[in-house]
Structures are given as C-alpha cells and as structure tokens.
C-alpha cells in the first residue's frame, strides 16, 4: 500500500487508533474530553481541543476506511460506509435516508458541495430563536477559516454534462444558477465522491481534522457504539460504549467505559438525540428529538439526445437558488436545485421499477440526466419537522410526516425540474414517482404532474441532510442547547453537530457544521483550559 496515503502513514507513525472490533476484554479509559462522532462536527472539535493541549478520545461507531478501501465499488461502499448499509429510512419507510457511518461520517461519502449557511437562515435564527451571536457578519470569519481548512473553492473545471444541463435549462428559462464550491485538493474529476474518494482529493474530516487531532495525541476508537451517558448528580460521569463484532454492526459483548471532564456529542441529527434519549438526560420540556429536519428531496430524470454519462465527473458543480428564497424566508416552501450522480446501483435503487420496464430505463443510463430539489423545511408553522424516538432495542428512528405545505412544494419542484430539463433539450422526462410515465414534452409533463398524487410511497423521497433534534436556542423551554452548543441542563455536555440547527439550512450543510463546531470548540477549549 502506498506510503503516500496520510492515514496509512499516520497509523504507521504510531497514531493512537483502536479498532474496537478486535478488543477481547472490557476497558476503562479517561481523558479531558470524550468526543462522540468523527464527522464534520466531531472531527473539528477533536482537532481544535487537541491542539490546545487537551487530551481527547474520539468515539466512532463505524469503521476506519481510507484510500486502500476506496475502490469505486458501489456495493462494497454502501454496505460499509453508510448507516444501516444504505437501507435507513424514516419510520414509515417513505423517505430513504443517506447518511455516513464511518470515520469522517457523512463527509467521507458526501458529494463535496460546500456552502456557507445562507444569511437569510442565520438572520431568521437570530430573530426567532434568540441566536444573535450567529448573525451573518459574526459567522463570516468562521466560514472563511473552515473554507481554508478544507480547501473549499468554486469548482474551476467545466461541469460534467449532467450538471451542465441544469445550467443550460436555467439559462434558457432565465433562472439564476451558480457554480458550487467544493472541498477538494487535486481532484481527478472522476465522480466517485459518494463511495469514498479514491484519490484522497476530498478534504473531508477523514483527511483534515481527524489526522490533525491524531497528530496532536488524540486517541480514536472505531467500531465502538456510544450506548449511554451516565450521570453522577448533575454531571455526566462517563460514557458506556459497546464494541462491534467482526461484522461491524453486531455488538461483540465487550464494553468500554470512557471517563472525562467534558463530553461533546456529535453523532448526527439521528444519532445525537438517540444517545441523549437512551441516556435519559434531563429534558424538562421534552425537546430532545423534536424539530428534526431533512431537506426532503424529490427528483426527475430526463432522457437526453446525447450521452450524459452521469456516473463520471464531479458529481455536483452547478446549483440554482432561483426558487430557494423566492417567497421570502417563511412563505411557501423554497428549494435548492442540484444534480445527483447516477451509478448503476444508485440509479436502480432510486428509480423504482422491476422487469423489462426497469431494464429498459436502466439500459439508457448513459443518456440519463437527473435534477433534485432540496426543500428548505422548518421555516413555517406547517413545517414542524419530524421526531426522533427510540425503538424497543434503543436504536434511534426518525418519524417524518410530510405535511400538505411540503407536498405543495414537492409538486412545484417536479414542475420546475421537468421544465428545466425540457428547456435543456430533454427528449423525455419522468418524475421519480410510482405513478409517473415518461412525458415527451413540457405541456404533457405539466398537465400530468399537476395530477400526480402527492402521497407517501407514491412520490419517491430522499434525504442526505439530517438536521435538528437537539435544537439550539436562547430559551430552554424551546431548545436543548444554547448558541454555543452548551446543554441547558448538564454543565459538562456540549453538542457540536447538525442536530443543533433549529431549522434546516437551505444548502448542503457540511460547512455550516464545520463552522459552528469550530466557533463553539474554540470557546470550549478556552473554558476547559482556564479551569485546568
């Protein structure tokens, strides 16, 4: 294996990394801070705290996978790198949830889109949730700092045709479009971001903050599930954790006790509320797990006259915000338009069908283009979000009812996306919906989409962005943590991930998570080093 790989090199140099799947006896370990989760929030936190000289232990349920494992293979990657082997859905099964489960979290498998939190969103938060400290001008330096740390910049290479069709359609109709900033360094423009970057170009947590933390003596356990934070009087005393067995998903029976002065939870918008609920932490106003947001996603597919090859090239490079804030921040739901990459497994799983019809659709994959709409949920009384609760076995599950308000936006988005695809020259367009046929022109599509039933299961919905469930806010009756991620009721607990967002973001959330975690970790480091 290449000695140029930074993870392989770090491991060889003596990083303190433990594969919990290989442990054969129970252990107790101790540090200044235990950080639960190694994604955008956990990685950032661990690096900043470790650089301030604090001893840090990182806990990750998924495995440590890196370049040697990233072989551009969908099946292997979906099984190993995604939550529930890519089978995670909302409670009723109607919305597929794409979420990372590995060192680096979702940043290891995301499509590299790197947006600042829209100023409209930050302003709304300061007005509605008392988060004055997060106003756009206060957050700007934090965004800038993280853009540098993760090498984020607008994509300089020409977009692939899959993305360019979104640009062409928007141009033809007079809709705005922009180039997407991406967190890559020396990108090969290959299109495999979603299965683990094979070239080490993606500057996610895996190649930035995780090595940064480990270089500064942090310890990392992977294959270790955080089960329960255990209180002693008014403080968390320790974390109880279960090692996974050889398959990576079934506990082996080995348990680890992690003691610390402070605990940072960054286990995702499903995992973090799950952990807090399992731990039965103080929650006098029953806010844990509430107001969970997902940027509900719907899609259309188009058949183009020339080859699109939607499996090759930077997966996301063009977006349109034409409809995102069109009706203001809290009017009819806004949505961002983007493009998904389509590899055969993903395409076959996402576009519903079987038999000869399915084969016929899939056989035209090289000519297939797709547009997705990401709905900005949580800004309207009729978009209260979903709820994370626990199953009987203690695992978290998200119930997300799609309200009429959202259905209206979903229908409107189908219409906009189809119109854009026809304007870019599509020969036929299909809504990704069980009742949609292929429409051969815009008028036909428009009439048919107006009649499609907007119902769970019929409309195929997805989410790659999970947010909320441990909302931040100034009022403890309405939130779980304050604007610094500090728990309202437990002094030595912080939450540093997307679960603290009080609404959705209105853009792909990784930079929002990085920036807020950086800001709150700098403050936490000051607090903790002043004490010791």
């Amino acid at each position: 294996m290449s000695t140029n790989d930074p993870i392989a090199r770090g491991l060889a140099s003596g990083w303190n990394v433990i594969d919990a799947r290989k442990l054969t006896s129970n252990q107790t370990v101790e540090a200044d801070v235990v950080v639960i989760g190694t994604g955008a929030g956990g990685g950032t936190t661990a690096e900043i705290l470790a650089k301030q000289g604090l001893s840090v232990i990182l806990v990750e349920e998924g495995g440590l996978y890196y370049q040697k494992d990233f072989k551009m293979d969908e099946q292997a990657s979906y099984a190993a790198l995604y939550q529930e082997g890519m089978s995670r859905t909302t409670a009723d099964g109607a919305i597929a949830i794409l979420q990372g489960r590995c060192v680096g979290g979702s940043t290891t498998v995301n499509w590299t889109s790197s947006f600042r939190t829209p100023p409209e969103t930050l302003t709304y938060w300061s007005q509605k949730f008392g988060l004055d400290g997060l106003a756009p001008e206060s957050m700007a330096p934090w965004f800038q700092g993280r853009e540098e740390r993760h090498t984020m910049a607008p994509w300089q290479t020409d977009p692939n045709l899959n993305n360019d069709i979104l640009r062409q359609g928007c141009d033809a109709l007079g809709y705005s479009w922009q180039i997407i900033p991406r967190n890559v360094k020396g990108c090969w423009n290959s299109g495999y971001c979603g299965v683990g970057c094979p070239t080490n170009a993606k500057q996610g947590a895996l190649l930035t903050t995780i090595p940064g933390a480990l270089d500064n003596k942090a310890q990392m356990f992977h294959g270790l599930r955080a089960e329960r934070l255990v209180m002693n009087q008014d403080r968390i005393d320790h974390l109880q954790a279960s090692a996974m067995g050889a398959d990576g998903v079934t506990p082996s029976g080995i348990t680890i006790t992690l003691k610390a002065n402070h605990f940072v939870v960054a286990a995702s918008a499903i995992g973090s509320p799950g952990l807090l609920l399992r731990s039965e932490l103080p929650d006098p106003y029953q806010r844990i797990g509430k107001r969970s947001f997902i940027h509900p996603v719907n899609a259309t597919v188009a058949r183009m006259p020339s080859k699109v090859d939607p499996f090759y090239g930077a997966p996301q490079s063009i977006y349109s915000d034409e409809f995102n804030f069109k009706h203001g921040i809290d009017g009819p739901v806004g949505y961002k338009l983007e493009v998904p990459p389509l590899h055969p497994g993903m395409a076959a799983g996402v576009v519903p069908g079987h038999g000869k019809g399915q084969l016929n659709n899939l056989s035209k994959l090289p000519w297939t283009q797709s547009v997705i709409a990401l709905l900005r949920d949580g800004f309207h009384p009729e978009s209260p979000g979903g709820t994370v609760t626990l199953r009987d076995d203690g695992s978290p599950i998200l119930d997300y009812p799609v309200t009429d308000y959202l259905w209206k936006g979903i229908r409107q988005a189908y219409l906009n996306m189809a119109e854009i695809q026809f304007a870019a020259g599509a020969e036929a367009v299909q809504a990704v919906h069980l009742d949609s046929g292929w429409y051969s022109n815009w008028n036909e599509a428009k009439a048919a989409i107006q009649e499609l039933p907007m119902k769970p299961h019929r409309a195929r919905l997805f989410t790659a962005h999970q947010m909320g469930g441990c909302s931040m806010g100034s009022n403890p009756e309405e939130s779980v943590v304050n604007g610094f991620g500090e728990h309202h009721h437990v002094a030595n607990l912080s939450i540093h991930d997307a679960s603290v967002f009080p609404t959705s973001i209105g853009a792909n959330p990784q930079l929002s998570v990085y920036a807020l975690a950086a800001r709150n970790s700098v403050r936490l480091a000051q607090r903790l080093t002043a004490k010791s």
Partner: protein
Amino acid sequence: MLDKPQNQTADNKTGQSRRSFLKTSFGGALLLGTISVSAGLSGCATAPAGRVSAVGSRMNASYQFQFLSKDDIALFEALLPAMLAGALPEEPNQQQFAIADTLERIDQGIVKFGAPNQKELRKLFDLLNFAPTRVTLARVWSDWPAVTTQEADAFLNRWRSSRIGLLNNGYMALSKITNVAFYGHESHWHLTGYPGPPAWMVDSLPQFQNA
C-alpha cells in the same frame, strides 16, 4: 413555538380510515409482528439457511447464508425471474447461476442493514412466506416454488399500484434490494451501459495494485 400537532397529510384525508391502519408504521408493525410469531409457530423456516446444497440450486456450496432462510430463498427464486425479466441470462443453467449469485449478494447486503432493519425485513418475508397472509395480502395462491414468472410479476404490480402505503413499501423493499444487488454488481454493469471505473484510474491508483 413553531411546533404543531404532526401528521397533517391532508392529501390522504379521503377514505383514510381503512388504509391508515395499514399505512402507519404502528399499524403495520402490529400486523406484521403478529405474523412473524404465527409464521414461527406454523413451521415456516425463519432461521438463516446457512450452507445450501449445490445440487439443483446452483448455489455456491461454500457460501453461508447469514440472514435469508430456506423459505426466503424460495421466495426470491420465484420473484427474481419477474423482477429481472429480460436482464437474466435466458439459458436455464446460466439463469440459475445468476439468481444464486444475486441471492448471495442480497444476503450479504442485508447483514449490513443491522438488527433493526433486519427485523423489519424478517416481518415482510414471513408475511410473504406464511400461507394465510400470502393469500390475503399478496393474493398469491400457490407456494412460491410453484408460482410462475407471470404470477410473480402480477403480484409485484399489485403491490406497486396498491393504494395501501404499506404494500407499496413492501414492493419498494423487494425491488430496491434486488435492483441494487443485481445492477450494482460488476457482472451486470454492461446492461446499464456503465463502463465501470475508468481504466486509467484503476491503472494508476495504489489500492488496485498488487491486489
């Protein structure tokens, strides 16, 4: 402040009472939970099949099934010719090999789903394997080994077009698992026109060397 009572999907208000029982995961889980217990009591094979004899099945005798039971395998052997119509090889031996390969990958995939989703799938498969529910909910009259490709296709279409969300969900689960296991595999990429990872990358990346 912004919180409101949930579940106001008023699109579904008409004719909701009967459907909503099956539609909500609560009703669904309740129903399916009962079936899982009955299926176990009535002698349905719900234990992982382990090694399956190669004779007749075309299975790789060294593969150890970790989730799919013998009944699940019979179910998928009946469904796959309809699910993958036109995509499976026509030559009977070749077709059986392709089905057996796909079954192994389905099994491997489900292992990584983890316990909670495995439990959901167990309920779905038991429902389809337990004769009384197979007849009433799937309207499939014979045991799966006797089901023709045409009948299997009709069943899939019924669940796909059903107005009952839970059955749509069952269709999606069966088709998604099969589609990803089949079309996502290298040996079937050609059917989608996907050439695979670019050769120039495979040739120059360290993870593909000295494999």
